């Protein structure tokens, strides 16, 4: 098991290094990069030239960049926003996290419960209803759902007065209004996450319920209830545990779509702005952030497989 963990960590680390290096190199190859970063002012030009290590082989530049990052304790400086990237991130990530956390937390029990219900009542009415719901919200993209929700909630039914999130509102003064403006984006995220979870849970549980060892549980004399609780649910939920853990990690990264549709000032929006403004350092910093988060999630998922599956835990056994 220890070997497994170390192996996975080493692999992920190498992969991350390679990918970030590729991203770095590619960015440097962008034609507008040099002017944009180095600027036109000849003084700073020379200073930056030296500092960033231009004119040296690309590998060296990469290490210089890393070294600079560690020395300065940051990810560089945004061009357009004229601020340190880490500060920008520190400001915006919590906004995204606040938005992501509630749908995630609520979607877990609801999604799993619906999936279990559908699997236990397979092919009956409730299963069909749930399955139809699942397929609708999996197929229709969240920006469609979000936009339609905005239209109906704000303009037709007049439940909310604005389709967008009020992030700047003074919570003390207008607490209720501030909270409710977050309801719509959270609901859209909630729907998406629930349907994904329900679908997987239903599929896994169904497969377990029709397997041979469940039959043996019945012939042992266990009631259907005992067999389901003690065996089916455990075996069925095990495959989805890694995905759930991975989902937890991705609370850190913002959903670009939701933040765009509802004008949430989170980390996703920053990337879009950076992209539209050709703000290369910011793009680079954010890409690195996303890459690391993604790989970290993958790592955690892999490790959790190791914990859950006894075959891996025990080093594939004696036979």
């Amino acid at each position, binding site marked *: 098991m220890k070997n497994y963990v170390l192996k996975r960590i080493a*692999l992920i680390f190498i992969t991350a290094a390679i990918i970030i290096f590729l991203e770095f190199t*590619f960015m440097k*190859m962008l034609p507008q990069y040099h002017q944009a970063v180095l600027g036109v002012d000849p003084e700073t030009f020379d200073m930056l030239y030296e500092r960033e290590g231009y004119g040296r082989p690309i590998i060296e530049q990469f290490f210089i960049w890393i070294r600079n990052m560690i020395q300065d304790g940051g990810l560089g400086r945004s061009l357009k926003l004229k601020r340190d990237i880490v500060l920008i991130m520190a400001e915006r990530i919590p906004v995204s996290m606040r938005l992501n956390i509630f749908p995630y937390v609520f979607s877990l029990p609801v999604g799993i419960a619906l999936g279990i219900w559908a699997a236990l009542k397979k092919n009956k009415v409730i299963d069909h209803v749930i399955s139809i719901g699942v397929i609708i919200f999996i197929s*229709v993209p969240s*920006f*469609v759902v979000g936009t339609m929700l905005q239209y109906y909630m704000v303009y037709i039914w007049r439940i909310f007065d604005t389709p967008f999130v009020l992030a700047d509102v003074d919570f003390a003064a207008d607490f209720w209004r501030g909270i409710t403006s977050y309801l719509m984006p959270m609901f859209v995220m909630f729907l998406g996450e629930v349907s994904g979870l329900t679908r997987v849970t239903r599929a896994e549980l169904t497969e377990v319920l*029709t397997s041979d060892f469940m039959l043996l549980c019945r012939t042992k004399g266990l009631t259907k209830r005992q067999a389901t609780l003690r065996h089916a649910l455990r075996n069925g939920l095990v495959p989805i545990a890694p995905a759930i853990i991975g989902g937890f990690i991705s609370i850190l990264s913002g959903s670009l*779509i939701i933040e765009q549709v509802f004008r949430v000032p989170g980390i996703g929006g920053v990337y879009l702005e950076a992209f539209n403004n050709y703000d290369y350092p910011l793009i680079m910093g954010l890409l690195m952030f996303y890459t690391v988060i993604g*790989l970290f999630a993958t790592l955690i998922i892999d490790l959790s497989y190791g914990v859950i599956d006894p075959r891996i835990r025990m080093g594939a056994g004696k036979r």
Partner: protein
Amino acid sequence: MAELNKEKFVLVQQDTILYDERIKTKSIGYYKDAWLRFKKNKASVFAAIILIFLILMSVIGPWINSGYELADNTSGIKWATRLKDMPPKVEGLDWLPFFSGDKELTGYPQNFSNLPDSVNVRIKSVNNIGQLTVVVDYYEYTRVRYSALIDPETQLFDPECYTTLSIAEYEAVKAAEAEYGVTILLEDAPLLAGSYRVRVDYYLFLQYVYDVEEVVFWFGSDGQGRDLFTILWEGARISLMIAFSVALINIIIGIIVGAISGYFGGTVDLVIERLSEVLSGLPFLAILTLLILRFGNSIWIIIMAFTMTGWLGISALTRTQFYRYKRREYVLAARTLGANDIRIMSRHIFPNAVGTLITSLVLYIPRIIFSESTYSFLGIINYAEATSVGMLLSNGQAVMKESFYQVLFPALFISFLMLSFNLFGNGLRDAFNPSLRGVEE
């Protein structure tokens, strides 16, 4: 027990050679069998029909209403913007409130009081600063606005009524009047600084000078006066083309890589697996944005972005399939008979995987469409050739209060497309792999 006839107790087939009974049912091939199973799934068949319809429309749609090409014509563009944000109108269906060409406007009472009856002003509500919300026949309203609107303050013709024609346009108007005997010019004016500032019946003007047969937008018009019906299908066409191309390319690459990896195993497999791991760590966002930053926004770049890492999933799937089947006895038999590797891979192993592959192909396409529409909604993808459906929706979101149809039609299109693909794909999967569905309990 009734008296049994003694004659019945005679041996009848003692000396005949007994053959296997003729199989009563006709033998059906794998695909025919799958097709029969597929047909039984009503939802999937329905989804398939919708899919075919949507694909068909994306091909012929832009041609159907091609009477309106104003926005493509260089000199016509400036006139098209006058027709922006018009609600949908379908002649046959204008008794339906949605397709009647009506639009809600908000303004002060005097803005609406002097409109002619043909505009059909209906008052809906009054708000607390004295403004009226009315429903008008917007097509008629637009015509009046650019032809004969009276300014409520001055009681003279509103400046918006006046149209500045170039010399060519003016002559064309005169020529059309002469030839067809129609009155287009409502108020003439002399040539002034190379142009004529006149008042025309706007729709007639468009009809006779720019060949706009009739100002009617089935799905309404967008913010630049383009026919939403046409550009929706044009955008659909591009999205579908991209999706199918990407799917095809990724499938081919994926199958080849997966087959090699799965069949040969060993070091080849290990190397490919490591490479795949690194590639899969590349966030798609990074690939897409970096490529666009470097090479700009064209269809080929987008396709390239999708095909950089899109084949990984398929290659993993193929690899598993090959692993599963390469140990079977018939492969060994084929090899002992002298078949070379390629033959074994293509004739013996691959056909087994086809069912699963077709299913994953069909379920893969909607994921591509999903990604593509998401990124075009965000504005990252932005074709020069046509407006993607996602972008249409994003544009619509800005004006959704007054012109909801600009959100509705793209939304409906995407929803139906995705739903149909997913249902169709599910039906295919169940048809090819009945064991996955589970026992009918």
